[in-house]
């Protein structure tokens, strides 16, 4: 009994255990449900999976199923970020415990009962429990926002090397607070149309209505919701990585106000899509995105400079090659910041190009081509967020030596290979005709599948190792149960 109790306490009471459970569940869900679409359907794997797991896939309900699938994965990712925030930032123990209990029960409910409802017949009790799970996560968000209140004097920043106001308010905490608060509000932009459309099951995917000349406020709300939630998850992760790397100094002082300003303005723009401000909403979003991205750039400059300085410490006059080696020395620390840079080529850059040349190029393509571009765009962003979490997780579990390098570089190279291939695939119509695209499509599909497939294999290996570790009397889990993320800020 003690055996189970100890493991349970590690998995559901410690930060590292909670993160492990969420990553394992996301990995399992991605591996299983990823076999139902794309090349896996092409190869006939989907039919086998449906048969073996006795899934009930009604054609007319595909969109609803996918929406629940996206949400169940997203909720687990939000839970991971919440564990990290509560592990890195100071807050009252009551809030820390309450937030973690709520969000853990919430995402497990959303994932288990949501997927049960979506893929195994419509048991409405399961749907109710899925909604209950989402509601618990919402309350966890509200509590987290309260816990992050930056004007509590207990959390004032006394160290002047960090961004702070004259009175001592910690600007980084304020950035976390602003992001959490706007996340909670923006969740409502999905909840309201979600309850409207699911009442009668008339669900739709945003990319399918994007060309409709007249969109309702509810449709705009859905489109705004999915954009802003992903953006906020990315901003929150930027702040988390900044805290982990002990982001400070002049760049920190510039970055934090920029991130706060950017976050608030982006949100105002997105909320504006359901108001008469809709025609200029995109412009407001661009205005907000610029400072937010500049803030992230400050973090990248700070981090890379730090890695180089630490790497060449002791060398009197380090050359460029030595500095370069120092920068790449630790893939787990270099990786998250590199992925943020790489995102500009595969997500932001493409998105901006798309917005600027929408009428001249993209609206000249058929809607289905535009849909491929849109879907690829946000799939890559979601996956980049996942890889950043996995890289940080590699450090959290204390990977060292060759294993650390192998794990880190495998994630960076395999994922970037896949993301670059997706980018080529989604923009292929710019440089190749429909009639002659097949060899290119085959190549990018192979690279995409290889990259993502191997990435999942690497993750599976880590998960199996962690599972086996749980059976050891004095495994790694014992040490992890004691350590808090805030103690490991680099």
């Amino acid at each position, binding site marked *: 009994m003690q055996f189970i109790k100890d493991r349970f306490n590690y998995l559901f009471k410690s930060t590292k255990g909670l993160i492990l459970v969420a990553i394992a569940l996301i990995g399992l869900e991605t591996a299983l449900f990823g076999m139902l*679409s*794309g090349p896996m*359907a*092409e190869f006939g794997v989907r039919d086998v999976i449906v048969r073996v797991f006795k899934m009930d896939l009604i*054609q*007319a309900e*595909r*969109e609803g199923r996918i929406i629940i699938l996206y949400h169940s994965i997203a909720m687990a990712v939000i839970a991971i970020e919440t564990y990290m925030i509560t592990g890195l930032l100071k807050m009252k123990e009551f809030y820390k415990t309450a937030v973690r209990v709520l969000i853990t029960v919430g995402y497990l409910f959303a994932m288990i009962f949501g997927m049960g409802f979506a893929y195994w017949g419509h048991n409405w009790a399961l749907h109710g429990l899925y909604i209950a799970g989402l509601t618990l996560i919402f309350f966890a968000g509200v509590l987290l926002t309260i816990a992050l209140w930056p004007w509590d004097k207990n959390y004032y920043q006394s160290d002047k090397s960090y961004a702070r106001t004259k009175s001592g308010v910690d600007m980084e905490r304020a950035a976390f607070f602003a992001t959490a608060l706007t996340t909670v509000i923006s969740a409502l932009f999905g909840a309201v149309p979600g309850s409207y459309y699911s009442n*009668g*099951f*008339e669900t739709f995917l945003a990319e*399918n209505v994007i*060309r*409709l*000349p*007249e969109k309702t406020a509810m449709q705009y709300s859905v489109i705004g919701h999915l954009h802003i939630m992903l953006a906020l998850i990315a901003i929150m992760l930027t702040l988390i990585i900044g805290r982990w790397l002990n982001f400070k100094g002049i760049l920190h002082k510039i970055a934090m106000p920029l991130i706060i300003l950017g976050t608030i303005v982006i949100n105002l723009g997105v909320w504006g899509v359901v108001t008469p401000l809709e025609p200029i909403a995109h412009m407001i979003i661009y205005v907000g995105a610029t400072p937010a991205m500049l803030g992230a750039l400050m973090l990248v400059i700070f981090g890379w400079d730090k890695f180089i300085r630490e790497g060449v410490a002791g060398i009197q006059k380090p050359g460029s090659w030595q500095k370069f080696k120092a920068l790449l020395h630790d893939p787990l620390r270099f990786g998250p910041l590199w992925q943020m840079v790489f995102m500009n080529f595969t997500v932001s850059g493409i998105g901006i190009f798309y917005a600027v040349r*929408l*009428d001249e190029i993209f*609206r*000249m*393509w*058929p*809607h*289905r081509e535009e849909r491929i571009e849109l879907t690829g765009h946000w799939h890559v962003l979601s996956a980049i967020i996942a890889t950043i979490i996995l890289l940080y997780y590699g450090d959290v579990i204390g990977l060292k030596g060759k294993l650390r390098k192998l794990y880190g570089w495998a994630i960076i190279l395999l994922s970037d290979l896949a993301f670059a291939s997706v980018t080529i695939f989604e923009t292929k119509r710019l440089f190749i*005709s*429909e*009639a*002659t*695209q*097949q*060899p*290119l*499509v*085959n*190549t*990018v599909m*192979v*690279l995409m599948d290889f990259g993502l497939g191997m990435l999942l294999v690497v993750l599976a290996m880590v998960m199996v190792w962690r599972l086996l570790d749980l059976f050891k009397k004095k495994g790694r889990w014992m040490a992890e149960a004691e350590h808090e993320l805030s103690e490991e800020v680099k």
Partner: protein
Amino acid sequence: MKRAIIVSLRGAFFATKQSLRTGRLLRAWSRYARSARYSTIALAMTLVILASCAPMNLNAPAPVYDTGVDPNAWATIPAGSFLEGQFDHPASIDYDYQMMVTDVTVAQYVDFLNKALADGTLKVDGDRIVGYYPGDEFHGAKHEIHIDAGDYIIVPTNDPASRFTFGGNKFTVKTGWENHPMTNVSWFGAWTYCGYNGWRLPTELEWEKAARGSGDDRPFPWGYDIARNNANFYSSRDPFEDMSAFGSRTTPVGFYNGQTYGSYVTLNSASPYGLYDMAGNVWQWIGDVLPGFSDRFMHGGSKDIYDMDLRIWVRNSATPTYYSPGVGFRCARNP
């Protein structure tokens, strides 16, 4: 590839040299193995990337099959109610109408092109054939483009993906493609063909009813589930497809009628009113012109997309000047 081989050989050379010099054969072998491993990966990646640059034969030979389905046949769809769209909204059409049993074939369209070019309905304009369209009312909506009265593209004359050739004053069907659906035809080309014959393009509602029938809420013209031999879609493994080379190609109209072609067995996939290819093969242009929206809708899915987009209610849209090897049409008329 050349570079990868050089890297591999260089790795082997240095490893051997090292082993001779130091005598530490095992270490050298380990280095060589690592070098060879990296080289193998580089070689494999290079091969994969080079494969994407392979030239494509757009006119690769295709099997010739007679489906037995008459492309000149029409089906009558009676007035009455049916369930429309993904969410089964009750809808009704209060008149009988007819729709072509198959998509318009390349042979049928080439006949039209030759006739219409001869009588002046169509004109040659550089590397395209153009025809007159009276224009759409402009509403100034977001993303709306002006479609004024004037000449618009019907078909391109020099696109290698077309299943016809143009010799300056006469169109000819490429051998073997006569009974395949006409593709590389713009919405204007489809609209002009139907109008020239005294017919019209179907409305979205007419198309949906013709595909689904009025009895139930089926997602596909033949029923509730889709198998690979129900329709021509991406990677459906029909005899006209080679995903490792040119990809998916059109199948002859009415191909999925329960016949066996060689060793390939098809399922009878006609709609309740007897229309073939209402899912898969080529997208079909719809006649509706929406106020403030320049795009034209298409339905039915095509050879180039996954099965989910073959569901009856799935829409695609494009500007009316758009043409592609995956887009065709069929006409409707009042009896």
